[in-house]
């Protein structure tokens, strides 16, 4: 079924699905912290619009509730939490140095292709008008993971994690018209709790390492610790030998 044969609302769903994917790429390329949070909020807006449209087209009223939940949680609450956190940590002007941003974006594009390929069998089974967007939802999940892998700052990690969740939610909406409400509520609160936990974790991380680079977390490993203690021991010896 080609695009021109679909109804206008179905077309709109597809356009907004593409925009959701686009915001994922924006997040992938955005080195600054606050715009990153805003991009995430925009993804939430678009997601809510898609959910609302699907609810309207497929006549599933409970999806309106999901859309509302998305707006409250992912457009306002979580971005607000992250925003406040960024202000309190004083990292709102920080920019991360991304190595080879173009290659990163190309890798993201490759992931879109890959998820298209992966989604084809699923798409064939589905009879829904929105079935083609399944590939997009998988791509959102994968690009979110890529974001977590490629970026070092903890805020970016959280955003990546949240956008993975966005992708999963999106997949549920477009492939089966949403999960049962109770599951959705549970997931939503899980995400909220995760966001708060991350916030606490940031402060601790900052106190312990004086940085929000997750790369430094490898200092926690025992192997590294033993090297450290070894070095310290060597230092101690060096100091001890001095008269």
């Amino acid at each position: 079924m080609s695009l021109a044969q679909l109804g206008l609302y179905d077309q709109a769903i597809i356009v907004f699905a593409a925009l959701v994917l686009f915001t994922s790429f924006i997040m992938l390329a955005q080195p600054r912290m606050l715009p990153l949070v805003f991009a995430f909020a925009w993804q939430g807006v678009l997601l809510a619009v898609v959910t609302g449209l699907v609810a309207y087209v497929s006549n599933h009223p409970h999806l309106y509730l999901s859309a509302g939940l998305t707006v409250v949680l992912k457009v306002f609450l979580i971005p607000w939490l992250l925003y406040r956190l960024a202000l309190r940590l004083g990292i709102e002007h920080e920019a991360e140095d991304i190595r080879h941003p173009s290659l990163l974006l190309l890798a993201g594009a490759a992931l879109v292709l890959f998820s298209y390929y992966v989604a084809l069998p699923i798409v064939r089974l589905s009879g829904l008008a929105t079935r083609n967007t399944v590939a997009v939802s998988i791509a959102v999940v994968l690009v979110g993971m890529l974001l977590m892998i490629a970026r070092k700052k903890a805020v970016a990690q959280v955003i990546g994690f949240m956008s993975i969740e966005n992708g999963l939610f999106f997949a549920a909406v477009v492939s089966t018209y949403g999960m049962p409400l109770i599951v959705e509520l549970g997931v939503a609160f899980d995400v909220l709790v995760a966001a708060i936990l991350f916030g606490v974790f940031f402060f601790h991380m900052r106190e312990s390492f004086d940085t929000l680079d997750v790369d430094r977390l490898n200092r926690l490993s025992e192997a590294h610790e033993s090297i450290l203690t070894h070095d310290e021991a060597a230092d101690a010896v060096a100091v001890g030998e001095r008269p």
Partner: protein
Amino acid sequence: MTAHAFLVWALALVQALALAAAAPLLAGWIKRVKCASQNRAAPPLWQPYRDLAKLLRKEVVLAENASWLFRAAPYVVFAATLLAAAAVPVFAVDLPTAAIADVIVIAGFFALARFFTALAGLDIGTAFGGMGSAREMMVGALAEPAMLMAVFTLAMTANSTNVATVVDYVLNAGLVLRPSFLFALLALAMVAVAETGRIPVDNPATHLELTMLHEAMILEYTGRHLALIEWASQIKLAIYAVLVANLFLPWGIAQELAPAALGLGVLAVAAKLAALGAVLVVWETVLAKMRLFRVPQFLGFAFLLALLGVLTFVVLETAGVNA
């Protein structure tokens, strides 16, 4: 040649010449809106014509070691740009000149113009010229794939690379929301900004040595040579504006060659160009010029948008999953 065919060719010629003739007006309009938006006194709308006329009258001063290539380059640049103007449907669709060159050839014309401008920049042997050429080629090399990729999205949707056919296709399909067109539009707009040397890639108003791209290459030109190059770059801006306007928002363009339809077509394209000029002014006022090595990222993002356009076309818009 029948009378009708003659008329059609004549009309096509008129369309191309009209675009060339109106291009300085667009430049004047942009300048005027920009001044108005920044609370400055604006030069009159026809100031670009006055500048061109003055340059055309003035004596040509050449550097001592200018070669024949330096003197021939403005004509090649102008010819290539004029040809590109002839191949773009401005106010009527089905004109024969559109078949001379499809959109890849139009990109080829711009590349030819850039090739000669860059060579001319190297001819005198000043440091500025070489700097401009090297930078321009970097920008051009990155902009060209992004532009072609954006155009391919449309070409694959409409199953044609002829601009006129694509315009016809979009008109006949009615209102279809296509995510791929959205991405292609954004990508093409970004490429157009880079290719026509506007902010944030280049600043057409500057002669500050470290920020020049296009101006650095043509620094040694005077008189009618300079007039031709300036005019060509105004035409180029107009062509990109017409491309963006007519490929993505073709409504109003004349599909038959009746006087009323043609009149409407002229009005429609004038309105679209005026609106696009205003958008460009807002864009240029909001953004600051990037430093040179940010430009690859800018164009890389344009390429990504174009790529997303193709990908969403393949993933979301084709029927390829029915088997």
